[in-house]
């Protein structure tokens, strides 16, 4: 991937667990480099990936204010909303545990 010209403080790496149950492939981590960090949330990072890097990544996004909890995933092993979590230098994102994965970070939610 292309390195951005920004200082290390101004970039972030997200490693995201990709999985499509429709294929027979095992889940695997994919790394995305973001050209920003401070003042932005993990949700901003996901939306940036969707818009500029990789349209195939699947994730839920709704209120972006930490209120709907639709976007909940595991961030570095803890259940968190990407829209409530500020970007750090390195982060790992996985789908919620004990839920059926639709694809990537999206799990089945029965409301």
């Amino acid at each position, binding site marked *: 991937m292309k390195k951005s010209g920004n200082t290390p403080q101004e970039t972030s790496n997200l490693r995201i667990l990709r999985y*499509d*149950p*429709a294929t027979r492939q095992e889940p695997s981590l994919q790394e995305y480099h973001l050209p920003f960090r*401070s*003042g*932005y*949330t993990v949700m*901003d990072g996901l939306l940036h990936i*969707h*818009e500029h890097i990789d*349209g*195939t*990544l*699947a*994730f*839920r*996004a*709704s*209120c*972006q*204010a*930490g*209120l*709907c*909890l*639709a976007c909940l995933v595991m961030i570095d092993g803890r259940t968190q*909303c990407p*829209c*409530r*979590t*500020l970007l750090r230098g390195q982060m790992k994102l996985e789908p919620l545990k004990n839920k059926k994965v*639709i*694809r*990537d970070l*999206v799990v*089945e*939610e*029965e*409301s």
Partner: protein
Amino acid sequence: MKSGAQSLDTVVADVLIIGGGGAGCEAAIFAQKAGADSICVAEKGIIGASGCTVMGTYSCCAALGHSDPRDNPQVHFKDTYTGGAEIADPELVRIFTEEAPARVLELAEGGVPFEREGSRLKQGRMFGHTYPRACYVGMRTGQAMQWGLRKMLKKAPRVRRYNDIQIYRLLGADGRIFGARGLNRRTLTTIQFLAKATIIATGGCGQLYAHTTTSLDNTGDGLAVALEAGAPLMDMEFVQFYPVSSIYPRPAGMNRTMPTFLAFVPGSRMYNRLGQDFVDAQYPDWRKSLARDFLSQLIYREVMEGRGTPRGGVYIDVKAAAPRELELALAVGGYYKKIQKMGIDLKETAWEVGAASHFLMGGIQIGTQGETKLAGLFAAGEAAAGVHGANRLGGNALSEILVTGARAGQAAARFASRQTGSLPSFSAKTEWEEWIEKLLEKPRTATGPLVLKKSLQDCMWKNAGVIRTGENLKKGLETLNGLETALSDEVALSHGRTPYHMELQDAIETRLMLGVARCIMTAAERREESRGAQYRDDFPKLKEEGRANFILTRVKNEIVCEKRGR
């Protein structure tokens, strides 16, 4: 095509509700109470989570008279009608103000933890309301209401809940509506709901604008499908803008409206990129008296005239504020602690803020029972027009969704019970399914749908935003034509059939948004005056003949806009 070229996933119900936010949940609960045997709620995201209801911060207004015994529905009526610049539907306002107290009390009894004083609900004061009538659950009123409604819905035995369903078309025959068709986002297959009555409760369309306080789901899908099916929309020019919405840094885990509280801290400054205190210069006393709409206009003008920040806003700066004052002003919602937790030092950082689309007063034209001009089709909540007129008072949204949701739910159930004949069958593929298949079958590198969605949002922001002119609106309508052509001829997806295909979702939403955008621009251009939330720079005054509503109907491929006096 014969016998449905593809096997079509079909669900049959008495009542279909499109949208699982506050209005949709309330409608489902009341449809069941009114005796409907089977009710389906189809939601694009997650029922009881997605949508804008959860984002309602503080107030749910109802004239309970708990905090001030002088309050009553007649005063609430007067406030609401006046706040709506005298073009709301008086009958709808009367019903709203009379029934809001009962609906709010039901929720309180049903477990929504509105703050109390003994047996009475606490009620706070809101701008434009004569008496304190805002019921609240801290700064999370909408979320508490939505979670309460979700709980009630889960206990409703005759309600089936469908998440991840993107509705794109209503099913109609002979001027009647029999349900809807959409995309199951999990499987990318077509799903249709055959129903005797259908309620649209999909909320507004804040996402039509580049800057918005609304949730990402808020793309006006229900308005678009109703328009497409022939139902008239009304008052679409009236989009409410919120003046102080966060642009940067992101208020992690806080509502985008949070920096409003910074603006009112003593010693705070609001200035443009050039360091000019543009609000103070014109209105030194603005913190005490300036209305939301007017502040939105001032900020929007700074940005549009090139004095905005690189991210398209202005600065709020509280570096000179006393720490104690700051802590006090930001105590609400736990904002002070949250900002600290974000590692932001307000002594060092100026917050970039700007105006943002917030609420749609217009929507589908309804009667007193939520019925539309199409038999079998109802609408409720922000998707319906008429209660708020040209502008909405703070606190009237969360109670209005309850009243119009309940009414539409009951009426749809009654309508369904009167239908004895069998439902027609809809098996043929439409142009929609063909378009989706074409997109999925031929992925390639080309203009992605998100590019067009962003162009649409940008076009609306610049040409149908806080300050409008006839010239810009005309230009905007032309841009929409170009986007429509691009969507049908140029757009492609980067990948084929996969579950939860976000690019396909963008494509469908963009197509629906285009129809709604056209209505907003058309009505805004026709209304040659400034009233309520619509400000026309070329017609800055209110006119007597403007006491009217513009009704928008799709006739063939044109939007016809008719004026109807109030």
